[in-house]
């Protein structure tokens, strides 16, 4: 077991030092997807904009809220949810999607987790260009709390790292796990306050939202953009998830890291 742990920490360390490779791979993923289309990655942003406008109008009537109140939080909610759910979905494919590399070259496995993070953060960066537009159209200004958004983003990304390591390994072995994760995410979208607000729930049940880790991650990035400082308990939970996640994932990864290639 000692050897396993040493090899795993080696893998993780090299994963960091070989940042050139994952930066290159991550950027290439994006480029490949939209190569030769005129506006490239902004197609995603554009389609997101259309979705948000349509949902915003319909749900502001359904919830009897003014668009001015509803649309900013819906927009930020969808942007951040897109990031979180894409990271969880992609986490399942970090190793199976890298089969051609892993079977040919002895690369650190964690490189491919970093690659997944780069890809999704770059996509998010494209989508965030909607935000100034949002501020301009609705005449809102978040003030200094917006400075906390990067902090939330870091917490989400670090958590996504262990999720990638854990789910990537599990999904290499159990090939229908990605499907299970995808359908769970679909349900999670509805029970997480993306389309609705926590305050809309009756007081007796609204505490349930606080137990939802995805809701916490959402809040840590979304709320600063809307000028709200997330509760300290949200930060505590985010960091707690990090600690628990790594405490579980590191021994797991150490045990099964060498087996991943055999499963591909």
């Amino acid at each position, binding site marked *: 077991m000692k050897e396993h742990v040493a*090899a795993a920490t080696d893998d993780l360390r090299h994963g960091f030092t070989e940042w*050139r*490779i994952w930066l*290159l791979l991550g950027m*290439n993923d994006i*480029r*490949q997807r939209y*190569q030769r289309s005129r506006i490239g990655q902004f197609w995603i942003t554009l389609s997101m904009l259309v979705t948000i406008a349509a949902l915003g109008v319909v749900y502001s009537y359904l919830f009897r809220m003014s668009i001015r109140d509803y649309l900013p939080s819906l927009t930020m909610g969808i942007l951040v949810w897109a990031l979180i759910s894409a990271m969880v979905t992609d986490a399942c494919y970090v190793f199976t999607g890298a089969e*051609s*590399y*892993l*079977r*040919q*070259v*002895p*690369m650190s496995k964690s490189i491919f987790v970093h690659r997944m993070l780069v890809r999704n953060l770059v996509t998010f960066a494209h989508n965030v260009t909607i935000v100034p537009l949002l501020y301009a159209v609705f005449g809102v200004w978040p003030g200094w709390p917006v400075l906390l958004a990067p902090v939330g983003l870091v917490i989400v990304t670090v958590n996504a790292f262990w999720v990638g390591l854990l789910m990537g390994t599990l999904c290499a*072995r*159990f*090939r*229908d*796990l990605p499907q*299970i994760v995808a359908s769970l995410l679909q349900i999670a979208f509805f029970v997480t306050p993306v389309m609705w607000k926590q305050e809309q729930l009756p007081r007796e049940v609204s505490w349930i939202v606080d137990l939802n880790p995805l809701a916490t991650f959402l809040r840590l990035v979304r709320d600063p953009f809307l000028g709200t400082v997330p509760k300290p308990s949200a930060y505590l939970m985010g960091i707690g998830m990090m600690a628990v996640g790594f405490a579980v994932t590191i021994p797991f990864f150490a045990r099964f890291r*060498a*087996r991943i*290639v*055999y*499963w591909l």
Partner: protein
Amino acid sequence: MASISLEGVTIEFPIYNARARRLTGELFRRAVGGNIKSDATHVSVVALRDICLDLADGDRLGLVGHNGAGKSTLLRVLAGIYEPPSGRVRIAGTVASLTDITMGMDLEATGYENIVLRGVFLGLRVNDVRRMIPEIEAFTELGEFLKLPLRTYSSGMMLRLAFAVTTAVVPEILIMDEMIGAGDAAFVVKAKARLNQMISNSRILVIASHDVEIVRRFCNRAALMETGRIVSLGSVEQVIARYLQ
């Protein structure tokens, strides 16, 4: 000093049938309890069995054997791709595996970008690859094409580029699955010369080949593999004689 030492290396590939690959199947099996032997979910293929091998500076080992004898798996163990659950692998020295020379290349990127990409996958630093570009550029004779995306290349041109980058650095331990070659008549001569130089500058060579002439030309030791074992290890002529029996 480069060296390779394998002791009792055994590699098994688990073959999961569709049922075991699914988590739901696993949960179901666990819940019901008891293993019905006939549904034997843990079938495995033994690709390498108890391999012992010691190589040092100056060794040029040729691996021969029929398809499925375990040659490629052994090469992958030497390259550090498969870490054996049992046995010990000790490898000292930089290793380059020329099993798939186009690995990591990107059709949408330009020739120049691909030089860097390929170089990075060979374990080089970006700046080091950049420094090697003029030499690689001259060797490929691709000229203006290097500024275009790889998808505009013919397969021969692509191979030229891959070959040029892959052979630009000499590793201490060189691993090859069949001899590689690339390009038209004129290029083949150049490529051969470059490859020969690479081979003679490396400290250890391990090459798997079905062509005994290749083994005769480049190797000073040979190993015959059969169903995952090394059944004969010794001088080239001795092993080839047994292989051809």
